[in-house]
């Protein structure tokens, strides 16, 4: 009675579905230990306290038994008061050490987790795009958040609980055997029943949970798709059809969810029953034994308390182990990321360089994102510092890919890319990228103020520099009309700005970065023509004296490029100035005529 059991803890947690097991539990455990080792001293202290609290927890009921038999029943008031005081001290110590022990473990576990989380994030920063292409953001997110949190729970609570549960069970067993071996045997009899029923319920409930999880996943998919595509559904009058689809899944979920919850809800009453059964057996056998002089009332009292201490850890053991197991599996998923070797790394003797000149050369470059599916074949080109190179071609022909190689987002499969006469692999990646300013097709802004977003191009820029860059990109015009101007907060992903406005900010960001090479990948596709004229001069200023690569659908904007490259199906098919290509009457000529014939 000195310890408290949480009965009916709800269905979550204990039977939250099937447990994912780690592939290599042992290896993962060792790695976790390596992180925790730095906290060895507090850890040992915590373990000592667990030992201490377990023993104190056993002493309590034992003392109660003695007090009843030797002091209360013989009506020894002063003796009872004295022993009661000792009991109070024991309980005080018990509470105090219990708290200290979890206090220490929380610290140990959080410090460990903090380091793990940071290392995981750092690792993500160093991995190349190829890695991110293979994984969804959601998957990576859940590894850094959920998986790590689970491990935290296990470290700060489950580990200690499992440890103290085992100690308690063993300790109680010894105490019971010592007090009265016959009653102890009766108590032990309940254990097989407990194991059997728990196992049955877990087996049955986890198969139900799998069904529920599947239906829930499907339902989430339908809801997400329908609500984000609501406008289309309404425009095409498909409300009923979509509703039917939703209803079907929802009905299925009604059944599977009820089944899963009902079965997992059984665990509470069943555990309660087993506790009561055990208690009943103890009282009954104790009473009978007492009648025959083989036990005492004090022993019964001690047993009643012990039986709670005894059954509860056994009841909880399976769910504790489950928590622990899924935490190990989670840690393993996190370690998987840690083990990824960044496929793009600086060479050991990489050249450290401050400023590049900007001569670019591609020779016989071939590349594919997946093996066997080449995107670029045998591309060779040369650009001298300060030139503007335009790249045109149909969607999906490999234009963006070509520029992804220049920034070394990906590594060429064969051939080489040179800047200033050195293979780009010879440079340090950070030096290389610092020298290349990029405005990407999909503009991405971070949540934060407009000021902060532009400053991303040059962290140490002053407010004046930022505003100057914004003016050069024609972004100042719209920013000054915003309620908080440069302090306007952009929501995550930049949904409160139009696509065109976001592009202007991205251009400003690149202008501020002030790099020797410039990549404009459809940088003005969402900007209307009027604004485009305005930033033309800004862009021209920006491109002046820099080697610039421009991808644009509107051919008008690239007419004056020093070199125009036509890429079709991954091959360089035409190359030359506007006049030369017009004279060739090839793809460029056709496209150009099309654009201006029709408009």
């Amino acid at each position: 009675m000195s310890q408290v059991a949480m009965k009916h803890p709800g269905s979550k947690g204990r039977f939250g579905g099937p447990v994912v097991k780690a592939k290599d539990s042992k290896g993962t455990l060792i790695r976790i230990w390596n992180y925790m080792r730095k906290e060895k001293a507090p850890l040992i202290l915590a373990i000592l306290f667990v030992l201490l609290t377990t023993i104190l927890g056993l002493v309590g009921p034992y003392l109660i038994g003695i007090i009843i038999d030797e002091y209360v029943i013989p009506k020894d008031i002063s003796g009872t008061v004295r022993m009661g005081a000792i009991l109070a001290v024991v309980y005080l110590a018990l509470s105090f050490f219990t708290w200290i022990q979890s206090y220490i473990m929380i610290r140990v576990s959080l410090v460990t987790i903090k380091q793990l989380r940071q290392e995981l994030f750092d690792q993500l920063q160093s991995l190349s795009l190829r890695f991110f292409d293979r994984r969804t953001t959601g998957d990576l997110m859940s590894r850094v958040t959920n998986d790590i949190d689970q491990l935290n729970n296990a470290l700060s609570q489950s580990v200690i609980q499992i440890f103290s549960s085992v100690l308690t069970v063993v300790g109680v067993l010894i105490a019971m055997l010592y007090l009265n071996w016959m009653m102890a045997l009766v108590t032990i009899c309940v254990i097989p029943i407990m194991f059997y029923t728990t196992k049955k319920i877990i087996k049955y409930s986890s198969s139900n949970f799998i069904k529920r999880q599947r239906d829930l996943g499907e339902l989430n998919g339908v809801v997400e798709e329908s609500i984000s595509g609501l406008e289309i559904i309404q425009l095409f009058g498909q409300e009923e059809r979509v509703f039917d689809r939703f209803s079907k899944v929802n009905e299925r979920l009604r059944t599977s969810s009820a089944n899963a919850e009902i079965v997992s809800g059984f665990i509470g009453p069943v555990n309660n029953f087993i506790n009561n059964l055990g208690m009943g057996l103890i009282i009954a056998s104790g009473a009978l034994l007492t009648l025959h002089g083989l036990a005492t009332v004090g022993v019964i009292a001690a047993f009643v308390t012990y039986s709670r201490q005894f059954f509860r850890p056994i009841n909880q053991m399976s769910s504790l182990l489950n928590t622990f197991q899924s935490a190990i599996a989670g840690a393993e998923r996190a370690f998987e990321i840690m083990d990824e070797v960044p496929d793009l790394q600086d060479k050991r003797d990489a050249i450290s360089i401050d400023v590049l000149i900007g001569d670019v050369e591609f020779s016989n470059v071939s590349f594919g994102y997946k093996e066997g599916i080449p995107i670029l074949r045998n591309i060779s080109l040369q650009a001298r510092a300060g030139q503007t190179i335009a790249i045109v071609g149909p969607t999906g022909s490999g234009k963006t890919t070509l520029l992804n190689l220049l920034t070394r987002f990906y590594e060429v499969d064969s051939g080489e890319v040179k800047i200033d006469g050195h293979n780009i692999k010879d440079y340090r990646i950070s030096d290389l990228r610092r020298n290349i300013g990029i405005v990407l097709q999909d503009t991405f802004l971070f949540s934060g103020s407009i000021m902060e977003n532009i400053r991303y191009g040059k962290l140490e820029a002053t407010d004046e520099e930022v505003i100057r860059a914004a003016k050069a990109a024609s972004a100042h015009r719209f920013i000054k009309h915003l309620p908080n101007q440069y302090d306007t907060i952009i929501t995550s992903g930049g949904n409160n700005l139009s696509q065109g406005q976001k592009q202007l900010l991205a251009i400003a960001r690149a202008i501020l970065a002030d790099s020797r090479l410039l990549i404009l990948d459809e940088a003005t596709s969402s900007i209307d023509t009027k604004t485009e004229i305005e930033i033309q001069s800004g862009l021209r200023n920006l491109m002046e004296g820099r080697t610039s690569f421009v991808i644009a659908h509107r051919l008008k904007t690239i007419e004056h490029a020093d070199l125009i490259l036509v890429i079709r199906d991954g091959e360089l098919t035409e190359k030359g100035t506007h006049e030369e290509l017009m004279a060739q009457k090839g793809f460029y000529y056709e496209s150009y005529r099309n654009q201006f014939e029709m408009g």
Partner: protein
Amino acid sequence: MQALWNLLKYLRPYWMFAIIGPLFMCLEVAMDLMQPMLMQHIIDNGIATGDHSYVVKMSILLLAAALIGLFGGLACSIYSTKAAVNFATDIRQELFARIEQFSARNTDEIRTGKLITITTNDVSSVQMALLMTLKVFVRSPLLFIGSVIIVFVSARDFFPILIVLIPLLAIVNWYFMKHAGRLFRKVQETVDRINTKLQENLAGIRVVKAFGRQEYEKTGFAAINHDLTNINRRANQMMMGLMPVMLFLVNIGIVAALWMGVIKVEQGTSEVGVILAFINYLTITLNALISSSHVLMVISRAFPSAERIKQVLDTVPDIQESQEAYRPEKIKGNIEFRNVDFSYSKNGEYVLKEISFKANGGEKIGIIGTIGSGKSTLMKLIPRLYDVDRGEICIDGRNIKEYGLRQLRVAIGFIPQKASVFSGTIMDNLQYGKDDVSKEEAVFASSAANAMEFIEKLDGEFEHVLTQGGSNLSGGQKQRLSIARALVRKPPILILDDSTSAVDALSEKAILHSLQEEYKDSTTFIISSKISSVMKADRIIVMEDGRIVGMGTHRELVATNSVYQEIYRTQGGKEESVHESGRYETSWQ
């Protein structure tokens, strides 16, 4: 709280379950409470008097009580779960049905992401709250009250201990919950911050790499990570103090019971069994108190969820069909805007001002203008995604508000800027346009949208299965599929809202050409920022700052309209282009 209460009307069909469940729980509780009492009788009446048969009788009663309790518990689980799951499923159904009727203005207000979370997570947490209420939240107070009453009746001597202890436990519990609640809210805020940081970092990984900002990102993350660790530590270390303190109080209660007990036994007013029973009831009381507060936390977490659900259910779809809707057999497609003003928010700036124009059936109309000039908004008014604030829009001479919503929308083939396609086959997607689309119609529309070219190359062609959001198609492919979906209904009114932006120039030309040839009778609006896309239109509307600043053929506008001239110049309009466009205009007619 209020919101959760309001939702309870969805429990009405299942009220039997919701009452039977807790009733069975009462049974379980009663049996649990009987146990210490039976034990007391065994000790004080059986052992003390050495009555063998009494002990046996009571022991059997003890086991029977356990069995009856088990039955009660299982039955409670069944009925409570049925009530909660059915309740939540019905709410979800209702929510979805309601959201489907939301106008664009409604969804703008609540936001798509939030609507999704409400339908999924919030409904689950309300279900959880009800389940907990029916099971644990009935159980714990009953155990608590039951214990107190039994102690009062059968062990009144020890009642003073409860009187001192219970308020103390309640105060301690309240104190911890209050502070822990505050701390855990902070934990949640920090967790949100770390999630946002992470999510953005991953989504913008190209930008991070392009600008070489890895170290900057790491430092930023480290700062939040540090905060999270600290706040988490404070919250958890605080929370972990609760149990030991409560335990200590209860254990002191036990010590007090022994002290008082020995005095009473000495006086002969009480017996040993009563002490033991009291100690048992004390433990039950504590358990009940602790689990109540845990459950209370789960339930209180559902309050904001219930509020959000209620917000959706209380939102009236602001675009409604008129009572006696006009449902014509056929719509010809004569459209007229009369002095239309429109603003997205009630007191906001007008996005469209004084718009008036007429389009005759079969006319091809181009709309051009700068970002934010109101082109897209103008088109969204025709299918009544939004309603006008002033003025009216008429189709075939009747205000569009008089039409049945379905009739109106069926007559319009709308191709939005963002091509959203749905999971399912290509054919499923085309069926969005027309329920009973035939293979021939599908091929015809797909060819017109220049989509046949890629559909043919897919496994299973029209039966090719698209993933959610059509992520296995490229942007240009999705746009062409979205065009085909609209064309398949052969609509009298066709709206292309800058819907060829991801399509290359040659494909675009082919699409525009087939619109001209195959969909002659459809009144067509083509919004674009490229003059090339609109210059062949019968008429071009030039928009700026929500107003129409010019209307006419390409040739007229080039000659007279300064805004148009400026756009034209920047897009490569030269003297010879005027000539060429002239040539095209003749070929277009």
